[in-house]
């Protein structure tokens, strides 16, 4: 499980990121200002840091200096959107630059991209006896390889990332197939097949008037 440090002074946003990333399967630690962030960095080893630039005390750029020698990849999150600021951020050594407001999907995707790029990826999602290897695009169930179509893979990924939460049908469709859902049959069919292939008939729950949910542990 990857450990991610979130440094953000706005409680609302830090909470949001924490919730989203935790659901996606990462272990998150939150710091509300530069000084406490620096302490945390010293004490712990993180696989990724999400830094807000405008922080009380040490700002994001200073924290970058701290993190670089440790080789920890950094993504800047900030409201400063001008090209100049982006260039500054990236040229100082950040791995990516995310501008507020952002969509949580985008955040998760960038986090994964950076982890993959820096070799800390090999992100695997695990639920019950199934392991999803995102880098290799491989699914193993109880040690055995399972053959899944790309759509099935994407669908399984969505379910595993949002464990415990009931995902709406049209959102699932949008995320896997793209575009608007015209009928539910395709989705339902794929869910059926997943249940069969993974033998997760009781793990993938149907939620009345909402969609589907992967049971929590």
């Amino acid at each position, binding site marked *: 499980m990857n450990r991610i440090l979130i440094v953000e002074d706005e409680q609302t*946003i830090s909470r949001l990121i924490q919730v989203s990333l935790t659901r996606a399967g990462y272990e998150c630690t939150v710091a509300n200002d530069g000084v406490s962030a620096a302490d945390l960095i010293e004490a712990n080893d993180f696989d990724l840091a999400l830094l807000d630039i*405008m922080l009380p005390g040490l700002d994001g750029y200073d924290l970058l200096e701290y993190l670089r020698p440790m080789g920890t990849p950094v993504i800047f999150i900030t409201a400063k959107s001008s090209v100049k600021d982006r260039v500054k951020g990236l040229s100082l050594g950040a791995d990516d630059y995310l501008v*507020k407001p952002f*969509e949580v999907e985008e955040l998760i995707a960038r986090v994964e991209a950076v982890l993959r790029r820096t070799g800390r990826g090999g992100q695997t999602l695990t639920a019950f006896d199934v392991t999803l290897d995102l880098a290799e695009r491989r699914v193993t169930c109880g040690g055995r390889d399972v053959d899944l179509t790309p759509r099935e893979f994407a669908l399984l990924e969505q379910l595993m990332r949002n464990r415990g*939460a009931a*995902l709406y049908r049209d959102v699932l469709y949008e995320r896997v197939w793209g575009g608007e859902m015209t009928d539910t049959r395709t989705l339902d069919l794929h869910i059926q097949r997943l249940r069969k292939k993974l033998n997760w008939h009781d793990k993938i729950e149907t939620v009345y008037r909402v*969609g589907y949910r992967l049971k929590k542990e």
Partner: protein
Amino acid sequence: MRFSEKLVCTILLVVVTFFALGGSALLYGDFRDRLSSMAAQEQTRHSMLCYTLENRILTLHRQGDPVTEEDLQGYVNELVTPDGNGPAQLAALFHTAGDAAGEAVYSCLPADWAADMLPGNGQETILRSGDTLWRVYCSALLDDWTLYTAYDLTEAFSARARSLQRFLLLEAAVVIGAAAAAAIFSRKLIRPLALLNRASRQIAAGNYALRTDVRTDDEIGQLSESFDSMAAAVQDKVAALELSVQQREDFMGAFTHELKTPMTGILGYADLLRSMQPDPQEQREAAGAIYHEAHRLENLSVKLLQLLHLDEEELQLEPISLDRAVTQAVKAARPALDQNEHARVEALSTGLWVQGDADLLCDLVLNLITNAAKAGPGKTITVTAQQVGRTVLLRVRDQGCGIPADQLARVTEPFYMVDKSRARKQGGSGLGLALCTRIAQAHGGTLTIESEPGKGTAVTVTLQAAPQPEQGGAR
């Protein structure tokens, strides 16, 4: 063409012209004098000749001998024949009456002189023969004889030519000397201009702090002074513009940030709720966050609009009862006071009136009271006013956490918050004090803050005093 060159050329042309004119006048004057003195001599010689001839005629008459042509011819010839003394003279003797009128008895005048060119009796004229000029005199003698004599003027001309030659050489020397001197001096005088030019160019290129600083007592010095004051003005203007731009950028940056942050929260949580049905705990949290952030936005936009409104419109000031405004503000601040552990307000009525806008004044006091409540929950807030001369000092004092000295100057900046997390939690936008300052300015007054961390803060607003209206007046 360079200015020093223009100067030198002008000086040279002027010098040459006046020198040449002056020299001409001088040489001409000398020439005329010489001619005059020659004329005196010539006149004498002519008169001598006339006298001699008349004597001869009278002698003949006296002797009773006839006055014959041959006699006179021989006589004149003898007199006139050059004998080596002095310049040559020519003569002619004519009958002027009788049968032989106009005939010459004797003449050694040049053949190309026609009779009508010769002067009349008692007159002189100047005639040319070949390259030389002669002055011709004419006198009528006894017995209807006319004598002409001519004198060579070459001497005057040759003397003049020599003088002219010397003068031209002198003139050449003067021209060269004047050119050299003019070049040297003009360059020296022009140097301040070159300095001025160089400095001006540097300033124009962007080095606004530079000054030309040419201190001469003349127009160039004045030009330098003017230019320097212009550069100073430009520098100030540029600095002011840059500051203004910077301020605007800062404002926009802070504003964008203040706007984007709640938006991120709202969008993020809304997206969450849209895509899944999390457990009730999470749902409530999401909804609550959305609500909170939206409130924050609302607060921000209200204050921002107020601020912008103040910038745009001219304020109409009229006499307002300060007590009334304070009372209204306290009433409006009740929710905020209650939220902050029931903080209390003590406002003494002073009976003072000020020039202002009732709503804005109420907002001002409301904002200050709200800030004070947030700073010191449960503590007492005092609102006082006193008149000093023509200004009224309105003071709101709290016993709250205070403002650190190093941040005191910045608290009135838009979006600036001393303790961001606390302020956000309380729904603050960072615009409160900025708005109050702006309202104070619009009223023609100022807003000052004194604070001691841990002890409390006092905000003082100066307003224009207004005469109290008669009993039963409006508002």
